[in-house]
């Protein structure tokens, strides 16, 4: 089984996969697809209480989201250059590449001087062939969405509105990528958020190395 499947909640996770993946699998396998939203709706915090929203906290959150957008933009740009794509997968890569580029631009503009410098992104064999491009797109889009869902509730209203305009587009990308890969586009009734640490681990598991300047 490919490491990317660890982040596909419709596929049974291998032994030793991340706790989050095991949890998602349990939910997907029938422990109740609605339990996640029930838990949240019933007043249990999705994670330990975070700090009060502030402009300063927004900058840290938006910089992490910028990192994810830059990783996605780098991936799709390389996938386009590598060629070897045709049909709807090529259309998907062309359309989504432009979206991610626009997301990067908007975040850089919003952050101004507070924007982090671009990281070095190494994609290894992620764009080697159509199958790898498709599988990596599924992993990246699901990870990006899970990160938005985790971070958005901690933004100030001023930071939240623009982030929400992007997060649903990431969700559309994720559903499209999953459909192209033969996976259920919307596997759960409520999307699970993923912490920054879990998302970084997910990128590593997908064979993507991100080196940030000091």
């Amino acid at each position, binding site marked *: 089984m490919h490491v990317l499947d660890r982040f596909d909640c419709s596929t049974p996770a291998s032994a030793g996969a991340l706790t989050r993946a095991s949890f998602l699998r349990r939910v997907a396998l029938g422990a109740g697809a609605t339990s996640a939203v029930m838990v949240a709706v019933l007043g249990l915090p999705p994670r330990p209480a975070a700090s009060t929203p502030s402009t300063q906290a927004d900058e840290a959150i938006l910089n992490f989201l910028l990192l994810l957008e830059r990783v996605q933009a780098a991936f799709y740009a390389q996938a386009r250059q590598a060629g070897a794509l045709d049909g709807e997968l090529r259309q998907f890569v062309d359309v989504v590449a432009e979206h991610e580029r626009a997301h990067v631009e908007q975040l850089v503009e919003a952050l101004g001087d507070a924007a982090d410098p671009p990281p070095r992104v190494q994609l290894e064999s992620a764009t080697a062939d159509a199958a790898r491009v498709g599988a990596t797109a599924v992993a990246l889009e699901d990870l990006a969405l899970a990160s938005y*869902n985790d971070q958005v509730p901690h933004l100030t209203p001023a930071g939240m509105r623009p982030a*929400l305009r992007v997060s649903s587009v990431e969700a559309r990308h994720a559903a499209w990528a999953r459909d192209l890969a033969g996976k259920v586009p919307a596997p759960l009734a*409520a999307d699970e958020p993923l912490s920054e640490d879990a998302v970084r681990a997910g990128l590593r598991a997908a064979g993507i190395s991100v080196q940030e300047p000091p």
Partner: protein
Amino acid sequence: MSLPGWLAPYDRDGAIAEAFGVFTRRHALHAAAAGVSAAAGVHGLAADAQAASSSDRGDVAVLNYALTLEYIQAAFYSEAERAGALRGPLAEQARVVGAHERAHVAAFRRVLGTQAVAAPRFDFRGTTEDADAFRKTAVAFEDLAVAAYKDQIPLLQQPAFLAAAVAIHSVEARHAAWIRRLAGVLPAAHAFDDPLPRAEVARLVASTRFVVSRPRTTGAGAPRLTG
């Protein structure tokens, strides 16, 4: 996306306006004349007045609005499944998405308890019995739900409600992409999705004439479809 005022007459009995909390003078007069104070009891905004704090009150209003949108979607997919006119990937979409929308209804009803607005009665005017009409209607509903959630989420005060609404918002976006692909249109047409204000959503829903009666609590008026 705004609709002309001539669509307003299709909101029979002010059901849409009531379900979406858009109070009109006509509705207020109608309610007063009929002496149906009981109607206020099933109305989400009426329940607001009993809530403890202003932030709770605001959250209840938002959740009841979301619940109303979920009622419509759940009933739509449930009816389409029962009608049995869908085949293949489209039937699969209706089955999976219908289960999600029913789960959303159950979650909101559970958390709102006695403050939950009741389900209206629906007439989907044949759109659940024809694959092409179903596709077009489902695309409209899902894109509308994404835009509606996006507009309302920043208004929520309680972190748990915020997290739940965010988690549902992205699922609606997945649904939208899924059905758009089945309808032969780009699943993600733009780099940014725009929010849609509540009054605009109410106008669009009213234009469908799908909601045919306000929620009732007793006997003969019980919802025909509750999702």
